[in-house]
Structure formats: C-alpha cells, structure tokens
C-alpha cells in the first residue's frame, strides 16, 4: 500500500523549502565563482550583515557566549559597506586576496526557524543554516571556517532576498589571519 498524496499546504512547504535551498546554493556558486556583484544583488537594500564574536563563560551565563549587538563584533555591515568590500576585491590590488583565494562554501541544515508554507511579497521569515567554508591560497595557507547562520529572508518582487544575516562562528580566538571571505 502506497503513500497518500500530501496536502496542498504540505506541497507548498516542500516547494518553499526548495526555493530557500536554491537561494543558498546559488549564493555559494556566486561567491566561489567570484561573481561578487551578482552576489550583492541577493541582499535587500536595507540588509544587515553581522558576525558577532564568541566568549568562554560559565555554564549559568552561557547565553553570554555570543557578543551582543552593541558590543564589538567581527563584522557589522550594511549593504553599502558590503559593497565597499566587493569593490576592494575588484581593484585587483587588495593584497589579502591577490591572488584570489580558492574557496568552497558548503551550506547544510537548511531549516525554517518557524513552520511556514508560503512567503508573501514583502513578508519575512527566519532561516537557519550551517556553513563549512574552506579557503586555500597561494601554496598551502588554509583556513576552515565553520558555524551557523541565522538569516531573515524577505520576498521582494517575487524573489527571496537576504534582509539580515547573523553569522555565529565556532571559534573564540579566530584561527585565521583575516576574514576576506564572505560567510
């Protein structure tokens, strides 16, 4: 005896999930293929790109192990400043990325923070992912950046856009000499 056809709402959920996955995999391709300007287009005009730091704290205070929004962080950008980073890469003399690093973005665990089966124009939803970013440059210099992302996605002109990104890296002392790679 075979499975019953899922409900329309369930099918809508499957479709929405795939749309979200497609967004993230497209993003990864744009970055790893160095199409940085196209990558910027995935962000909403008022996007926030924030990467807090991590701390070692006692068990009872464990929620404090991610630095707050009004604290110093690794990165706190809006779309305008993200664009400056992209333009710096395009100069060809940004030595930290000249020659360019070889980078692969692996995105996994795509999950809606709250159940949903549709995202209407202008509406937003929270999406969680994991990332594994491998970066290798010149001869043997290699960095691995691993962590979680908590995004807010918004539908704009029918397309999903990243309205907010919070990047939770699983390191306290950053074991990379720079963060020239977008996460």
């Amino acid at each position, binding site marked *: 005896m075979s499975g019953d056809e899922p409900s329309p709402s369930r099918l809508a959920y499957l479709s929405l999930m795939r749309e979200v996955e497609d967004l993230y995999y497209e993003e990864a391709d744009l970055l790893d293929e160095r199409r940085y300007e196209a990558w910027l287009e995935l962000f909403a005009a008022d996007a926030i790109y924030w*990467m807090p*730091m991590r*701390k*070692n*704290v*006692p068990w009872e*205070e464990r929620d404090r192990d991610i*630095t707050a929004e*009004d*604290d*110093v*962080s*690794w*990165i*706190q*950008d809006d779309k305008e*400043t993200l664009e*400056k*980073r992209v*333009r*710096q890469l395009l*100069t060809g*003399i*940004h*030595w*930290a990325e000249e020659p360019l690093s070889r980078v692969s973005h692996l995105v996994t665990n795509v999950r809606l923070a709250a159940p949903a089966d549709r995202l209407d124009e202008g509406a937003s939803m929270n999406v969680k992912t994991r990332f594994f970013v491998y970066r290798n440059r*010149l001869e043997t*210099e290699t960095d691995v950046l691993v962590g979680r992302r908590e995004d807010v996605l918004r539908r704009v002109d029918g397309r999903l856009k990243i309205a907010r990104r919070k990047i939770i890296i699983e390191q*306290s*002392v*950053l*074991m*990379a*000499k*720079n*963060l*020239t790679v977008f996460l």
Partner: protein
Amino acid sequence: MRSLNGSARALVDAVSGEISREIYVNEDIYREEQERLFARAWLYIGHEDQVRNPGDYCLTKMGEESVILTRDRAGQVHAFLNSCRHRGMKVCRYDDGNTRAFICPYHAWTYDLDGRLIGVQDYENSYRPPFDRAKWGLVEVAQLAIFRGTIWATWDKGAPSFDDFLGEAKFALELGLCPWDGGNGATELLGSTQKWIVPCNWKFIAENFAGDALHVVSHRSVDMVGIGPTKGPGRRDDYGKPHLAAYPGGHGVNYGVTPPVKERRNYAASPATSAYFQSCWEKRLARLGDKAGIVPLIGTIFPNMSFHLQQPRTILVSHPRGPCETEMWRVYLVDKDAPDEVKSFLRSYYIRYSGPAGMTEQDDMENWSYATQASRGTIARRLTYHYKAGLGTEAGTSDLIPGGVTERNTSEQNPRALYRRWAEYMDADDWSALR
C-alpha cells in the same frame, strides 16, 4: 638554551640601518626574547573597564602565558599567572566574569581574589609540618601600574617604574587616552576584545605601527574604495602634518599636527558624529590653543603595544606564539561621554578599518605573513633587512612634541630606535644594564 650574550648588537646595525633576518625567524632567538624581553619589560595587560568592580576578572596574556586580571574586595587590581601552584592547572578558564575566588578544577585548591591560597584539602592533617600557604599563592606580577585606564605590568622586580619605562612617550598616551575635547573626562572600551592569529613574527607588527609611512602605498585598494568617515575616498579623517618621534625606550610614535582652524568637517558620513567632534574640537581649541591639533596617530610602546589613538582609536597587543606566529588582541576606545549614536557609528567604522575584517589591516597582515615566510630559508637568512630611510637626516627636537622628532614622514628612524632597544634587552643580563 644558547645565550646570545652580547651578540644581539651584532645582528642589529642601527647605524647603517641593516638588521639580520635571523632575529625574525630563529627559534633560539625567539626563546631568548621570551626570557630577556617579555619576562622583563612592562607589558600592556588590559583596561580598568574590564575590572570595574571587586570580584571582576578577565583573562589576559603576557608573552605566551595566560594571566588573570582581577580586582580584589579592597578594590586593588592584581595580575596573576593563570596556573595552579599544585599541579599547574589553569585556575580560570572564563574570558571574563565576576567571582568570589578561583577554585582549581583538579584538586580544588582555592585562591582568594588577591591570590592568596585559602583552600587546601585536609590541610590540617595531611601536611606535617603544615607547609606555608603564604608561599603558595598564585604567582603575581612584580609590578603593576594604571595609567589613564590602561593597565600595565612586568614580571621583573628590577624593572624601573612604568613612568620611567615610558619616558617622554608618555606624551602620546596622555594625548591619546584623554577625550577628544582635550579635557579630563574618560575614554572607555567600546566592548570586547578581538583576538586572532597571524602567521608572522610579532616585530613586523611593532615596527609597522612604530612608524612606517612608506607602506601607505600598500593600502591603495581601500583608499580607492573609501571607508573613512568623510564619505569620500581614503580611510581616515584629516590628521594634518605627520611628525615622527622616536624614544630611547624603543617607543615610536607618528603624531599628526593640524593648524588650529575653527572648522573641522570630517564626518560627513554621520551628522551626529560630525556635530560631536565639532563641539569637542571647539572645547579642545579653547583648552589647548596651538597644541590642540596634535594627535598621536599611530605608534608602538615597546615592545608589543601598538595603537591608533585618533581615528580609528584602538590598542593592539601582539602576543608572540613562536617566531612565525602572533596572536593579535585588539580593543577599541571611545570618549565615555560621546552619544550612543556616535559610539555605534565609530564602532562599525573602526572594525571595518582594523581587525581580521579590517579592510586596511588585512593588507598589512598579508604582507607581514609572507615577509616572515620568505625570510625563513637558508639563503634568505644570510641577508639583512633594509632600514636606511631617513639615515643621515638626524631627528631634531620640536617645541611641539618631545622625543627625537622629524617631519620626514618617510624616515625609518622609529623602527631603527625600536631595534636598537631590542638589542639592548637581548644583550643585557638585568635591568641595571638597561637603564
């Protein structure tokens, strides 16, 4: 470990401006640095904001070692080696917090906030005769000093006072750590410390901040893009005319001097910031007159505390992790009384300039790392580095600024002074030989 006895001077020829590459990559020399320099010099270890109240503590570093910075019940600030006297376990493994005592996880030896050993299991019966607990407290630094909120310490009892150690370079810290209006208000930390690891020798960082205007060209990509507060190209506000000052203690500072014009318009990107700085500037002019325009742009307090104290405003400590690896710790400063909007604007600007995501510092770190790497080889080690810029144009004195001052921005006099002092530390057997 082999001693360099008297040979460091042979590696550092500050007169002809040539320095052996060995001092940047040699393992033995690195170990000597730990003994003769980092265990001896005054080191920046933190800021009072990190230990405001009794029981507050945070972890810091001196050289390669973990150190606990804390304030006891009496309000006294202490710094202790973070290692239990029983079997060496780290007694504190939290970056910061507030506690009543430090209890070792392994056998529960307990240390008071002032480092005294106050708890030992079965002390009464297991030790015949009982050992003297007073001798087994946490190892405390030999001297500790607080200067305008910044905290400094040394492991060496024989070291001079922090004031003597700093010498005339004190002028830079006084200017740089006071609020922008030149008054007696306070500056504060913008928040937590950035910590990250760079595969370069720590001296590349120290010399770069001590004064290396020649490398400005390496920042062209960020200047083209423009990340400064002015909305235009460039990465900073206007800092006027640079003056390089070298100090016998090995410290080096690059001061900017702007004329006492009435109007400063450098913060177009943030009206609130622009307004705040304009009002500060007016107060500053009133207070300091012709000297209002003097700011310590960038510098290094020997050996490894470096700073920008105008825009961005930040302290960097370069903790060695081996000849070819350095752990960078960076904090950011702001006027305590500045409006929150100003603080948050500056915070995001500063971390866009400095740190691992700093569009300026990224290119420095790339250069430091590959310069270190390319200096390790058999043939490379036979060569020297070149520090000749400004040789022959001796630094003079200035009525504005203390120290050996030159307006020749391209001069490498400050790195030369830094390495001259480095060689003195490496050759001296104790502080008496260093005064």
